[in-house]
């Protein structure tokens, strides 16, 4: 790769930009053009932790959705998560190194297949996490961008509302709203969670927009008569994409944990539907006698939260190489 490439990789790095000497000559480009997106992708795929996280997340997602199916579509696993049966061998898991057996994750006290239940729980938790992540990102981005760009009374109003949301303890707020919405299905529940978790992103985006709006390309856009919304959508928001994507990933990870906590407390997903949190809550008394009922959902929660966090780490390093290690 030629030296000309360097400054694109590290904008604002303290080292000199070796390309500049060539300015005296004719402008010439020797190698392939990279957009910023391509540069980010390149760095992301070099981040081993992030790739491992991505692989684990994809594996869990595929496993959860193909095994028991979703909606009307049935999966490759022959049992569903509601039908009861006879308890075989005390409900112990039959999973071994290279085979699944009849009930890989065991059975609960009424003989329901625990593998199917964990898969359903994973589905619900994943859906909730992603809906929360995306919806709260959208709310936060709009509020942050409007407050940061227009300043004045719009900013004061929106940021005071944000403060208001922040000072109310999240768990209490989400519990009350979640309880009200809990019976209307997981999507409504997810949207309710999104409505209380957008605050961090709104502040983050506002900060970014505040600094971007003072950049000269924004002044230049205003000077040629560009309208406010066009400036926000075309000139400002694309430049905050890095911050937004990274924050979204972490929001997804924390949404999983929030949902788990609420379901565990009984404010979240309501029976007969289940989530990983409600599974743990349901079987917490069995911890000493039948620990697998606790371990399997626990491991899945951990695996999902960890892998999403690793992906977030990789994205952050990819968008902002200066934070990372040398070279």
């Amino acid at each position, binding site marked *: 790769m030629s030296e000309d490439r360097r400054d694109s990789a590290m904008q604002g790095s303290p080292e*000199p930009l070796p390309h500049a000497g060539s300015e005296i000559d004719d402008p010439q480009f020797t190698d392939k053009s990279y957009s910023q997106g391509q540069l980010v992708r390149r760095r992301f795929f070099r981040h081993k932790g992030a790739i491992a996280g991505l692989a684990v997340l994809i594996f869990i997602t595929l496993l959860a959705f193909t095994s028991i199916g979703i909606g009307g579509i049935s999966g490759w696993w022959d049992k569903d998560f509601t039908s009861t049966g006879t308890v075989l061998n005390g409900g112990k898991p039959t999973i071994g190194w290279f085979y699944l057996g009849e009930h890989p994750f065991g059975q609960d006290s009424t003989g329901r297949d625990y593998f199917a239940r964990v898969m359903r729980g994973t589905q619900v938790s994943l859906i909730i996490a992603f809906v929360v992540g995306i919806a709260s990102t959208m709310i936060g981005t709009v509020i942050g961008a409007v407050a940061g760009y227009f300043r004045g009374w719009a900013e004061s109003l929106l940021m005071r509302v944000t403060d208001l949301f922040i000072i109310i303890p999240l768990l209490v707020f989400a519990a009350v709203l979640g309880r009200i919405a809990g019976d209307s299905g997981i999507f409504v529940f997810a949207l309710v969670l999104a409505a209380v978790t957008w605050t961090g992103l709104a502040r983050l985006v506002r900060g970014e927009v505040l600094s971007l709006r003072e950049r000269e390309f924004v*002044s230049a856009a205003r000077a040629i008569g560009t309208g406010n919304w066009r400036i926000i959508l075309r000139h400002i928001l694309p*430049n905050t994409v890095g911050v937004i994507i990274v924050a979204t990933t972490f929001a997804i990870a924390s949404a999983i944990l929030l949902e788990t906590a609420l379901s565990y407390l009984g404010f979240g997903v309501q029976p007969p539907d289940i989530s990983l949190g409600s599974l743990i809550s349901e079987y917490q008394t069995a911890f000493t006698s039948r620990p697998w009922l606790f371990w399997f959902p626990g491991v899945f929660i951990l695996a999902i939260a960890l892998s999403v966090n690793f992906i977030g780490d990789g994205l952050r390093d990819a968008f902002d190489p200066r934070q990372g290690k040398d070279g």
Partner: protein
Amino acid sequence: MTTVENSTPQPIDDGTVLSFSGLDVKFNTEFGKVHAVKGISLEVRPGEVLALVGESGSGKSVTSTSALGLLPRNATVNGAINVAGNSVDTMGDRALRKMRGDDVAMVFQEPMTALNPVLSVRTQMVEALELHGKAYGKAADARAIELLAMVGIPDPEKRLYQYPHEFSGGQRQRIVIAMALSCDPKVIIADEPTTALDVTVQAEILDLLRSLKDELNTGILLITHSMGVVADMADRVAVMYKGDIVEQGTAREVLTQPQHDYTKRLLDAVPRLGSRGETAPVVQGEGPKALEVNDLVVEYHRQGKEPFRAVDSVSLSVKRGEIVGLVGESGSGKSTIARCALGLIPAASGEVAILGEDITKMRRKPLKALRKRVGVVFQDPASSLNPRLPVGDCIAEPMDVHKIGTSKSRRDKVAELLDAVELPRDVANRYPHELSGGQRQRVSIARALSLDPELLVADEPTSALDVSVQASVLKMFTHLQEQYNFGCLFVSHDLAVIDMLADHVVVLKDGKVVEQGARHQVLADPQQEYTKRLLMAAPVPDPEEQRQRRLERYDFMKEIGEEDHGLHLDEAPDRKDLMGGSAGGEGQMPPGVSGGN
């Protein structure tokens, strides 16, 4: 002031205080190795100024940073670096820390960021003294006061307790120099010490540095891109290009008889005052002027304070096809006027008429229509293009906003504009970060011209560029102006650039017009004291001529009753004792050459 020739170095050890031999620096980056410095050899003797000249990216700062052992961890350094007879490469962390400050000190480009804004000047100066064991407690305070007096800070006993923001830019740089002097270093590395300063302040700081080497026998490695500064300061010059030293010699040799092609090009590119002679004034045909500013007042509101008047009843006008140069130092309000003329900040009173229509009271719709006829070029090529848009889209953006033409006709126009700014057409698909500073500025100019503007506002379009790049951009700019015949308000702090370009010059100071008139009148025969000072402070890239100018400037300053800006040794009588104690007899004081002129 003693002449440059007299300051022959006095040999200590091998006669050098700082030497590099075969210095080679590579950086490991994501895209492979970058060879920043390619085996160069340099030496600085006591009492000598070696100027390291080159454009951005030539490796000058890497060279100087390596002397302090401060390169980032991804650097691989080969070759020998000697500071005051000790080899830097073999030093451990502790020895390095002692060496920094004791033997070699650094003066940075931006004094505001080199000083910690939350600590008082006293804390920062005493810290340097105490860390190196030079003085403690009361003695350190006394020494700090003495150092401040030496570098010409008035009333040092009181000002010692103030914070960096309470000083002006020039004074801050003096404080940084005082801190650099605090441990009597044998060599000072000054990395673009005057680049961030106004030209009159630059002249003062250069006076101070010059008296440093003459009176304290300090060696100075001066890193700069300005040939004028080199001519003013340097005994010897080394020219760096792409990590290599292409030419080295005495200042007079290199500046008057350059051997290497690159040095020649660099010198040719330096804009010179008075190179254009008299030109005919621009006569405008019928119709309103491109820009007419009448009694303009711009105020910035401050919370709980009187509003700050940045521009105070300024009147000027730009005819069609005329370039008006707006000159002034930082804080003179020149950029504020430019931004106000673009309608980006409101006027407190007065009127700003673009093509005959007053924009101060205009509503949004007609303003947008009017903006179609105005182009703008900003200073910083790194921030004036949206990094997420390919260059072609950046240039087409104004046409897109005003919904002019089809996407095909826009593409054609972009190609035509790229030709006009002398960039290859396939640049349209590149992103701004792939372009160099000069190329980006060409793109900015292409964008400004995309709607065939009748008025172009250019806010310091070349001051962030290297001098050779500046020369080619200015040449192109003049050419485009003749071709498109727009009126132009050209803001700059550089008188030589204005001299090359403008038809009419407006000199600003503290938001007020000091002087205005035809270019050759104002610049060749200035009437106001301020304009004279500005012109005298601008250095020229010829050592002989520059010395003449310097002497003229000293005379002029005496005339207007300003003190000289060199070291004030007489105000610090204990200086020699302290110095003898710390330098261990090795650093012999030169006989006290009289300061100033």
